[in-house]
């Protein structure tokens, strides 16, 4: 091989390599754009605020006292669900919500790190003691969903399974008339 050949082949190699690098960069930029697009148009975004709370006193005052846990129909027709995770259950242990309604889930942990995962949906958030988790959700189908704790929370973790019951809108409205916070505990 002459020196010219070597030089030529090095140039070819570099050119091919640059093309591949360009393709790789394009792939990556596309992925980042997709994420931004989904964030804007599909309204799936992380919670907008960082809120703190004292886990050992949540049962004394504030929004996570026992009488405020559960689902409530807001004036604008939306629903707010407040829940806590603790070793080894969620309260309410069964969450009831209406179908096809914008729902805000606000939840926190009373002791260690837990997680809320509603199977068959993309509702999935960590519960970190000291901080309030917030997640928007909307169920397209009525029915029962499982809600396991998805983070190791010590030796009873395998027994920490809650439930979500998605019911008809009118049913929910009828139940909400009585006031208070709704849940499907004991049903």
């Amino acid at each position: 091989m002459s020196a010219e050949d070597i030089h030529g082949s090095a140039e070819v190699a570099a050119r091919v390599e640059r093309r591949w690098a360009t393709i790789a960069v394009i792939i990556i930029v596309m992925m980042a754009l997709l994420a931004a697009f989904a964030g804007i148009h599909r309204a799936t975004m992380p919670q907008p605020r960082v809120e703190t709370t004292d886990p050992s006193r949540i049962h004394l005052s504030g929004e996570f006292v026992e009488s405020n846990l559960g689902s409530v129909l807001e004036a604008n027709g939306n629903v707010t669900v407040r829940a806590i995770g603790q070793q080894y259950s969620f309260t309410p242990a069964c969450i009831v919500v209406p179908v096809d309604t914008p729902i805000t889930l606000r939840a926190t942990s009373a002791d260690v790190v837990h997680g809320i995962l509603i199977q068959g949906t993309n509702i999935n958030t960590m519960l970190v003691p000291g901080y309030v988790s917030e997640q928007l959700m909307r169920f397209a189908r009525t029915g029962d969903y499982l809600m396991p704790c998805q983070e190791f929370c010590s030796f009873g973790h395998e027994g920490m399974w809650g439930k979500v019951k998605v019911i008809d809108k009118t049913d929910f409205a009828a139940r909400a008339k009585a006031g208070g916070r709704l849940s499907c505990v004991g049903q």
Partner: protein
Amino acid sequence: MLANRKLILAHFWLAFAVFGVALTLGAWQMFIRSPIGTWLSNPELYYRSLTAHGTVMGYVFPTLVAMGFGYAISESALEQRLVGVRWAWGGFWLIVIGSIMAVIPVALGRASVLYTFYPPLIGNVFYYLGVVLVVVGSWIWVALMSINLRVWRKANPGAAVPLAMYANVAGSYLWAWTAVGAALELLLQIIPVAAGLKATIDAGLARVFFSWTLHAIVYFWLMPTYIAYYTIVPRAIGGRVYSDSMARISFILFLVVAMPIGMHHTFADPMVGAGFKFIHSAFTALVALPTLLTVFTICASIEIAARLRGGRGLFGWIRALPWDNPMLLALAFSFIMLGFGGAGGLINMSYQLDASIHNTQWITGHFHLIFGGAIVIMYFAIAYDLWPHLTGRDLIDLRLIRTQLWLWFIGMIVTTFPWHWVGILGMPRRMAYFDFGDPAIAPQALSVTLSAIGGFILLSSGILFLVILARGMRAPQAEAGPYRFALAVHQPATVPIALNTHALWVALMIALTLTNYGYPILTLAMTEGTSVPAVYVGAQ
């Protein structure tokens, strides 16, 4: 020539011995929580085993492999006796002591907090101190790699640092910096509480610190594998590295962008602002770049080998490859698993897709496929390739080696594919047992059973691996000659200074850490009232 064979062998043997133990625990875990196992009357045993498995596989095993391989690279690529051998042994013994210190409380059930710690759960203080010692031992190696390179540079001013050593040192710097996150979490937060000096801890801050380590540690695990892709495989099959500079760029890209992306582990967490989550998400996309470049360069390097062997045609060259060569086989398996695992990783990196699989069995499937699959199979290959040089004896039975690699590959696919699937179905991680009798999760039973069978295939492969290495210690003597690394097609005589040193990229790595982690850490550290009472594990 490898002058310090004993040092390197000690690292490898310890690495593979603890690997064997942790692998056995892993297979047991897969079995016991599957429908073919019976429920544990004490779920704590499962979490105890899980803690040991994770701690060994995450901290001890890959660190020892990287260290042993690093010493081998330093001696052979630089053709220079290792400087600081006593220190190297010191680092090794620190890891031995640290591992023993950590494993005793774990074995006694006093530290079943899993390798991710996640306070406010707090275990026995000696567990955390042991982990710290392991990390400190590995930092000695980082320093030695840097010193050895410096000594070599003095003797060879202006010369191009051999690619293997350049990458090795990049990996060591990445580890040094990425371990800082967990070290801060342990030293500032967890150990004072575990030792009884404090009773509260900021769980959110701890998770942010841990995410600093948790992601980039994967790239530290990956470094030996990538070094093997670039500098061992092409040589072993008679090819050449397609491009020396592209290889260097891949390694420095890992150095820069592997680190400031860890918060994609906290997408679902309440203590990190949405803006930082997006930045980390975008940077996580970037880390795919060095892998895409590597896939191209390695495929091209392999093609060179095939064409040198007379391969023809657009794809016909693939048939001309030496498929009976274990290095090629390992590489092919590694790439396949990297491909699937990488595709899964793209799903994890975006907030929107991550929501459906976060903390499900998908995640465990994902990192077993990437780490246990793509990365560890190349650790096997590295060991096979180095063994004759370390023992002065041949590894004769190539068929057995190929069988071992096949078993590992099949086992990993059988284990992780169903694992991913049940993750999509919403099966949560880290549970000691599941009630598959309940109709709501009964459909997951078959997949979990398959995974458990895969676990036993992996175990058999792991045992075979240890047998092959042990037999290699007793084979007839044969001098393997100097240990060499692959050369590039256009082997450069000089390299631009930026690609011959690490300073610029280390500076960028630290700068990006400050921009991407500085504010979230400071603000959480300074906010009053975010510390919560510690919860001690295992009533002691």
